[in-house]
């Protein structure tokens, strides 16, 4: 084996080693940062991954939104038609948050069965929109209020 070849082989070996290490780290990081998407029915069926951030999706149940008059705290029910889950949130709700609207909440389920959200995104507008715009909007949790009755 010539010195050049040997050097090249070592180099390739080092790169392979480094890339494998990076892959292992990446997979671990991925596992830590995965958020499962669940519906209220999944919450009832108790099929929740424990101790994890989850994304809860559904519609804001009618007549369930209640605000604390002195702070930004708010609670509301999220329903998928079959079951409801209470969500508690402290912060600014997206522009389009309202009853009957689709929402996604990021957070975790506490012992009392209330979903503690640290982020709430409203979903779906009421009419068709170009995908790019939809995404831009939804990225920021700002879906648009589509044409309201004139």
């Amino acid at each position, binding site marked *: 084996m010539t010195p050049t070849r040997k050097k090249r082989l070592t180099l390739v070996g080092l790169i392979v080693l480094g890339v494998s290490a990076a892959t292992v780290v990446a997979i671990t990081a991925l596992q830590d940062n995965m958020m499962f*998407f669940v*519906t209220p*029915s999944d919450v009832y069926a108790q099929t929740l991954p424990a101790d994890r951030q989850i994304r809860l*999706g*559904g*519609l804001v149940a*009618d007549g369930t939104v209640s605000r604390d008059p002195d702070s930004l705290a708010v609670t509301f029910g999220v329903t*998928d*038609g*079959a079951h409801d889950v209470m969500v508690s949130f402290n912060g600014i709700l997206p522009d389009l948050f309202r*009853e*009957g609207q*689709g929402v*996604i909440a990021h957070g975790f389920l506490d012992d009392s069965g209330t979903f503690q959200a640290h982020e709430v995104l409203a*979903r*779906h*507008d*009421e*009419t*068709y929109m170009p995908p790019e715009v939809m995404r831009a909007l939804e990225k920021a949790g700002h879906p648009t209020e*589509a*044409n*309201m*009755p*004139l």
Partner: protein
Amino acid sequence: MIRMLLPLIVFAGLLVLLIFGLRTADQREIVQSPLVGKPVPEITLPGLNDPETTYSTAELIGEPYIINVWGSWCWACREEHPYIDRLGREAGVPLVGFNWKDEREDALRWLNRFGDSWSFHMVDFEGRAAIDLGVYGAPETYLVDHRGVIQHKHIGPIDATVFEDLMRRIVQMRAEADS
């Protein structure tokens, strides 16, 4: 040689994944329509042309039908209207209009202008019944079979491809109902 083929192999794997993604894109809506495969909730609502008449989903059990959610404010409903026309003519099952969050005057003017191919309309101006039905937007189209079970839900306007897909499903539902 194998080494040189490696990028191609990786790329092929990526393609498989993307094809899968494309095939299942339909099913990956965020709020999985919880009612698909479940019976239509019993909804009783007044008519559009005939406010005194009430229509109920319970009366419709026995044959397949279509529910189409629309509103005069909804631009995409205009876009899908030619296909609604065709559904009304070709589907051979009742086509129920679900007029959502609209005003009677606007809705009637709209129908006057674009044509009314629906069998009849139920009106839900407040949008309360729509929540039971699981409506997230307009237009939406539901296919309900003769047992009153929601078989399919399409979100967004109907285009040529969707129309064909819907027709295929409708024919299937009719065949089931007849057998």
